[in-house]
């Protein structure tokens, strides 16, 4: 059974609608990530689940129990929900241990201390017991905020842009680390973020959001390789669309030759003009390849290089190549395609 059920809720933020007819479910032990640009209503949904935002329509249930519906709302402090705030919101006047213990202050002192020490061990900050928040680095503060939210053993944990203020390296490391901690403690969690790598690294399932609605709710793999719409495809990952004409049996005629899709069937009539998504990892730089192109831009990233290439027709492609190959700008090269999963949408008149 789903632990969190958000059913067809609508919310306003200030005086403009933030969420409309919004639904999703999270099952026990699962980590869900909501991915979307800022202003898409991600934070509003968390605040509605927490009980800080009233809802105009729909229902929110946790473990089958009604939390919110229009005109009714369980107080935030009565909900079995923990939250890691975007700015962490640690209490500046309390030590790390006191911060973590504040949610379980009614338990016997010895139990509190045991919980605090156990959580400090899990987050790897055993030696920070009596430090103050301002004495910690950003990543350490993040972990303390997580431990504080976990201490009362909430049924559901919410994380609002947890690593937004950290640098890229730390963000990558911490998102995997936090995922491990959540799995280790058997938590059910919803993470909200506008970083795709973070959502993919942490979420068992990812919801791609835009303007108060979920476009696709799926595993990271499927979101990337089987986006359900052009919108999702362009919001997630890099890539370019090339034009193709649908022929029988899932084959397309493109300026790069004929490409074949063995995974999907298309109900569109033969001869339909479609847009086919080419991810940078679908395009290989290959001296044996049949397609010729010119390098127009290159972005060296250390372990690989992202090339922008121009075909004779003027069409631009992206290709990711190992950094051992070093092409110069304006250099001629040859390409081949490595298409496992083809993504194609009927061309929409603009």
């Amino acid at each position, binding site marked *: 059974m789903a632990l969190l059920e958000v059913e067809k809720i609508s919310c306003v933020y200030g005086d403009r609608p933030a969420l409309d007819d919004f639904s999703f479910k999270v099952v026990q032990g699962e980590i869900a990530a909501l991915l979307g640009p800022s202003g898409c209503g991600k934070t509003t949904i968390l605040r509605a689940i*927490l009980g*800080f935002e009233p809802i105009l329509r729909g229902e929110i249930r946790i473990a089958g129990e009604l939390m919110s519906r229009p005109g009714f709302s369980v*107080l*935030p*402090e009565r*909900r079995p*929900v*923990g*939250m890691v*705030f*975007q*700015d962490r*919101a*640690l*209490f*500046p*006047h*309390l030590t790390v241990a006191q911060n973590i213990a*504040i*949610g379980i202050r009614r338990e016997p002192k010895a139990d509190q201390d045991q919980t605090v020490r156990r959580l400090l061990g899990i987050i790897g900050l055993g030696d920070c017991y009596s430090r103050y928040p301002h004495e910690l680095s950003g990543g350490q503060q993040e972990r303390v905020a997580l431990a*504080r939210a976990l201490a*009362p053993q909430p049924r559901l944990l919410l994380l609002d842009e947890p690593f937004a203020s950290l640098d890229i390296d730390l963000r990558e490391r911490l998102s995997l680390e936090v995922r491990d901690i959540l799995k280790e403690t058997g938590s059910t969690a919803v993470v909200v973020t506008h970083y795709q790598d973070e959502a993919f690294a942490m979420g068992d399932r990812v919801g791609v959001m835009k303007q108060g609605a979920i476009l696709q709710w799926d595993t990271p793999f499927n979101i990337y390789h089987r986006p359900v719409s052009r919108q999702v495809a362009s919001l997630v990952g890099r890539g370019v669309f090339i034009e193709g004409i649908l022929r029988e049996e899932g084959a397309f005629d493109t300026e790069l030759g004929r490409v074949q899709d063995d995974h999907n069937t298309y109900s569109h009539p033969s001869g339909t003009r479609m847009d086919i998504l080419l991810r940078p990892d679908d395009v290989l730089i290959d001296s044996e390849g049949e397609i010729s192109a010119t390098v127009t831009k290159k972005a060296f990233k250390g372990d690989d290089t992202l090339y922008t290439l121009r075909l004779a027709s003027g069409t631009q492609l992206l290709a990711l190549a190992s950094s051992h190959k070093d092409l110069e700008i304006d250099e001629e090269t040859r390409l081949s395609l490595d298409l496992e999963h083809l993504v194609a949408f009927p061309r929409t008149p603009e």
Partner: protein
Amino acid sequence: MTSAAGFSSRFWYWGSRLLAAAILVPLVVIFGAWLAPTTEVWGHLAATVLPTLIGNTLLLIVGVAIGTMLLGVSLAWLVSTCEFPGRRWFDWALMLPFALPTYVMAFVFLGLLDFQGPVQGLVRQAFGLPASWSVEVRHSASVLAIMVLVLYPYVYLLARVAFLKQGRAALEAAHTLGMTSWQSFFRVALPMARPAIIGGVSLAVMEALADFGAVAVFNYDTFTTAIYKSWFGFFDLNAASQLASLLLLFVFVLLYLERYGRSRARFDNGTTSLDSRTYRLRGLRATAASVYCGLVLLLAFIIPMVQLLLWARHWIDDLDFAYMSLLGNTLALGAMAAIATTAGGLVLAYALRRDTSWLTRASVRIGTLGYAIPGSVLAVAVMWSLSWIDHRVAEVWLWLTGVEVTWVFVGSVFSLILAYFARFLALAFNPIDSTLEQVRPSVREAAQSLGLTGVALVWRIYVPILRPGLLTAALLVLVDVMKEMPATLLLRPFGWDTLAVRIYGLSSEGLWERAALPSVALVAAGLIPVFLLAVRGRR
């Protein structure tokens, strides 16, 4: 929303407006004095002393502005971008003159440099001059010099922070673009620090305009002394109000400049690099820097302090019961004002967060305007407003009971506390506001989602976080009330003399040596906020 939340938001809503009215009404009342028929005293004043007053005031503004700017900016530049012997020490020591009230500085220097003072005596002895030889020190230049020595820290403090915040990168960038040290100072550092400098200079000039004690000691006629004379000399409150309103016009111009300085004060690169010393001075230049800083410190703090202590030693016997009651009055007034203003500051700071309407923001702005308004002006304003209220109260009372009452509020401790409240509300507001800033909305929500609500929320989260801010606010107000002179002189009820009143009484009769003892007490109290500033600067 529950009704309790409705009540509490209404409380902050009306609380902030009420406080703004407490500041605004007296100011409006002052300008109202022009509606009353012109008195003989005013005619006399306008014909004889007004041109002198305006001339003196302009001279004071220009002199203090230039003086504090030169002194404050040069010192701030040295300690924040150069390295020379004693720099770390001067960094905080140069704030010390803040602890000296202008009027104490004034009488100490007069005592030192006067005809009978030790300096002229030594000069006569050394050059074998006759006993009749003397130099007049009650000169406008002396007043300016003293004001500059006491008030330069305003510019020093703000400019220092501005220079530190620019970081060494801006200066080094200037050098890589081929500028010399002097060019990068004038073309990069100074323009970047301009808002802070303007802010500091206008604060210093505001203080100079508000000063009563120093100008009184030097017989330098300004609006504050004229207000005092028309009140106590001619008992003409109307003329005093008219003078006060003219002084206010000067203040408004300064206030505008200061706000300009503050609103544009983000000319920085956002990071404070504490190790931004770009220039390591050597040899003669290093010595010159140390000597310059040392000389300022010597004149502005060490000499007056030593002189005060020497004088105070002779009059230690003054410490009797009467003296203790003086100290008691001072502390009692200070404590009452501190509690009232801290509560007021809390209301304003919290209202600003609970209600974001423009009227609330305007109320907070008006409520924190009082620091710019001279104590003597506020005294006149409070007197006007309360005597009007007293008359109405008397009428109603007579109508109700048939008994005549005279003054209810006028001449009461309440009137004095009201003036302190108006003057120092901003002083209390600022530290509370900046600590309240730490309790971001998410902190409150985090507490709530962890089950902390109501009393537990206030007790475990708000009180501990705000405590340092509230204490700082109360302490700052206490110290400033202790030092406050003009409003206290004008409004104090019978039997409520304070240390500052005693200092005025003694120094206006030329009894410098006896005035030293209460002054030492005030300077000691004044060191507390300087210490707080220095500690905050370290962090």
